[in-house]
């Protein structure tokens, strides 16, 4: 049965690739290569940590990996639906057969590859000679099974929730917070006093009682020839796996004999329509309507929220250096430039990605597509401009020095204009869908979109430099008033660049509208 499931999964992947064509194949190879590289690096690190910190280090690493396996698949629930248990429920298969089959199929995935390579590294790091490698490998294999089974148990238990729109909202925002939080954590760790091994060993001492931690400790003991205790811990780990498998089988049985979650999906509340979109809907012209729609989406669409939360946390982490440099100085109002960058990056270089299948709604009305772009830009300005003014003003108040407040606000506005300008062109050339059902849309990111985004980042950076120089150079060489004049000039240039981009991107959009429709309407690969 396990072999049958493995073959089924391999065939499904192969057929999906056949259907998707060239870029998807390239992306597939890229993902597996990335997984291999990541696994090799983690394995190397795992081996070194285990050699240096012993059983406690391995326990800590295995616990962290176990947590990643519990959280990761939940956050990315839509990413692996190769074999859906619900599609098998009419076949005469017992939950036990199904669970072992699905477990076997789970070994065929990039996540499993990373874990196996990591575990191999820990096994090699823990084993003083080849003879001790075999019992350590058994504990390592048990750990991989634990990871796969516990992840499957959690996703099966949460299937209904994850299939509901509310559940996906929670997962996507949770994932963004988690991603941003880990960026923060890594920043703080890297700024810390240094040796992470004592902290890791301390964590290992606590986590050794949990099954993944115990398996890590057991692996090291077996490698060191402590057979009795090592085998005892391995037995504890295997018993824990048995419990998880039983729980999973029960949840599979429950899943196959109850009504689909859709029926119980909670009705979402639209909430009171905010004032600005309401005012915009009174304004004649499509661009105001589009700006209003974008602002409503900003409030209601988890993809916007996740992107905004993730960006906010990541940029805050990245901007810590700049912040430290600017905070408390007369230049702190220039933090507004970071806000401008964040606002422009929220919709970034894929402004139509959130529209995905709905893009036809613009085309069928015959609306001037330049106005669609203008409306989307207007929404960003309506959020970004007050935001950057607020940050600049608060920073000026905190340092009790408002000399650079006007220059900072104008510099922020200029950066916003330039980034939006580049974003317009790239959004037309490198659009890709970000459908709601696929939380991160990563499988839909074609190579061309990736290159377009990187190109966009580069172009925006290069074009921003001379615009920023108009403010920075006078500020450093001459003084406040000269910087203000430079900032005014920067805004004028930024607006000219934006105007030019609307003309270019608008013309491109008119020519490529049907191509965009085809790309955005493409079902997830």
């Amino acid at each position, binding site marked *: 049965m396990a072999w049958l499931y493995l073959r089924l999964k391999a065939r499904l992947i192969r057929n999906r690739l056949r259907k998707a064509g060239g870029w998807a194949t390239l992306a597939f190879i890229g993902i597996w290569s990335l997984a291999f590289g990541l696994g090799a690096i983690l394995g190397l690190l795992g081996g070194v940590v285990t050699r240096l910190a012993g059983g406690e280090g391995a326990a800590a690493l295995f616990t962290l990996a176990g947590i990643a396996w519990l959280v990761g698949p939940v956050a990315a629930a839509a990413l692996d639906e190769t074999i859906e248990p619900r599609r098998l429920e009419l076949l005469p298969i017992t939950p036990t057969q199904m669970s072992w089959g699905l477990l076997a199929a789970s070994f065929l995935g990039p996540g499993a590859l990373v874990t196996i390579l990591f575990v191999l590294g820990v096994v090699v790091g823990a084993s003083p000679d080849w003879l001790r490698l075999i019992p350590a490998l058994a504990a390592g294999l048990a750990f991989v099974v634990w990871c796969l089974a516990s992840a499957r148990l959690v996703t099966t238990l949460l299937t209904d929730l994850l299939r509901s729109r509310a559940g996906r909202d929670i997962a996507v925002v949770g994932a963004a917070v988690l991603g941003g939080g880990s960026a923060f954590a890594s920043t703080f760790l890297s700024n810390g006093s240094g040796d992470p091994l004592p902290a890791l060993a301390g964590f290992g001492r606590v986590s050794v009682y949990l099954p993944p931690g115990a398996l890590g400790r057991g692996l090291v003991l077996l490698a060191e020839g402590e057979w009795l205790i090592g085998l005892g811990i391995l037995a504890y780990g295997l018993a824990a796996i048995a419990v998880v498998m039983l729980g999973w089988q029960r949840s599979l049985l429950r899943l196959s004999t109850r009504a689909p979650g859709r029926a119980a999906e909670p009705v979402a509340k639209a909430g009171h329509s905010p004032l600005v979109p309401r005012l915009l809907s009174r304004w004649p012209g499509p661009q105001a309507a*589009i700006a209003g729609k974008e602002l409503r989406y900003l409030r209601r669409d988890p993809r916007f929220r996740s992107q905004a939360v993730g960006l906010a946390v990541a940029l805050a982490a990245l901007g810590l250096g700049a912040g430290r440099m600017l905070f408390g100085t007369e230049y702190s109002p220039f933090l507004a430039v970071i806000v401008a960058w964040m606002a422009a990056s929220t919709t970034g270089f894929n402004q139509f990605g959130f529209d995905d299948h*709905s893009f036809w709604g613009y085309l069928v009305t*015959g609306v001037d597509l330049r106005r669609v772009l203008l409306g989307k830009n207007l929404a960003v300005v309506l959020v970004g401009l007050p935001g950057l003014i607020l940050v600049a003003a608060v920073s000026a108040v905190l340092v009790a020095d408002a000399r650079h407040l006007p220059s900072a606000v104008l510099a922020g506005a200029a950066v916003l204009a330039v980034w939006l300008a580049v974003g317009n062109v790239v959004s037309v050339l490198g659009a890709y869908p970000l459908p709601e059902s696929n939380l991160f849309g990563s499988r839909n990111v074609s190579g061309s979109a990736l290159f377009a985004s990187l190109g966009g980042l580069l172009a925006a950076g290069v074009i921003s430099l001379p615009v920023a120089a108009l403010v920075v150079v006078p500020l450093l060489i001459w003084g406040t008033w000269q910087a203000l004049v430079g900032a005014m000039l920067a805004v004028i240039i930024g607006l000219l660049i934006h105007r030019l981009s609307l003309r270019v991107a608008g013309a491109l959009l008119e020519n490529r509208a049907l191509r965009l429709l085809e790309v955005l309407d493409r079902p997830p690969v």
Partner: protein
Amino acid sequence: MTVPAVLYRGLSKKFGTKMAVDNVTAEIPAGSFFGICGPNGAGKTTLLRMTCGLLRPDAGKVEVAGNDVWVNPVAAKARLGMVPDNPSMFTRLTGRELIEFTGLLRGMKPEMVEERSSNLLRLLDLEDDAGRLVADYSLGMAKKVAIACALLHNPRVLFLDEPFAGIDPVARQVLEETLKRFTAAGGTVAFSDHSMDVVERLCDRLFIIDEGKVVLAGTTAGITNGRRLQEVFVEAVGGSSTEGVDITWLGSISD
């Protein structure tokens, strides 16, 4: 001479080696309730998408109320409304917001948009759900709101791709009555459907398309000539037979 609601002249579209629409030349008269029938993969959706400016044909032309869709798209799109088979809409807007948004995109005045939206919501029995997100609508409600979006600017021709598929009889009744009122007032409805009973009951004219070609066209009464449309359809597109296939095992007790 009356301008036809839709005019096709040699319209063709090829996907790879498959001719999806093959040299279609036909007319849909103004004021008619027109059925576009065909088996799965016959080219109905491709034809409708080309008619509404969502897919560029390889050859030929299509006019909507006298306006070439690909030469004068703005004028043509101002005169048509479209509801796709599985309408993907801006689902994070409420029903009312979506209808109003569509009207504003079409350049209508905000006051007119508001008044007509309220009328359509009442007509389509969506008033109570107007404040809910479209994402939370059932398929029937989603189709109704899509029809409201398509009707808001009072088009000359309304194109619907399988409008009755997957919706309950109550919603179906509301949709049918709305469409009948639209044609009674002089509008044209062109819709594709697999249910020959529905086409026979609603349409005064139709054409049957198979492998991209129009194989039968005319008035419903003329085409059926006293027979059921289902029989005429199967005859026209060539029905499959189970003769010659060994299925003697089917239904026999084997355990």
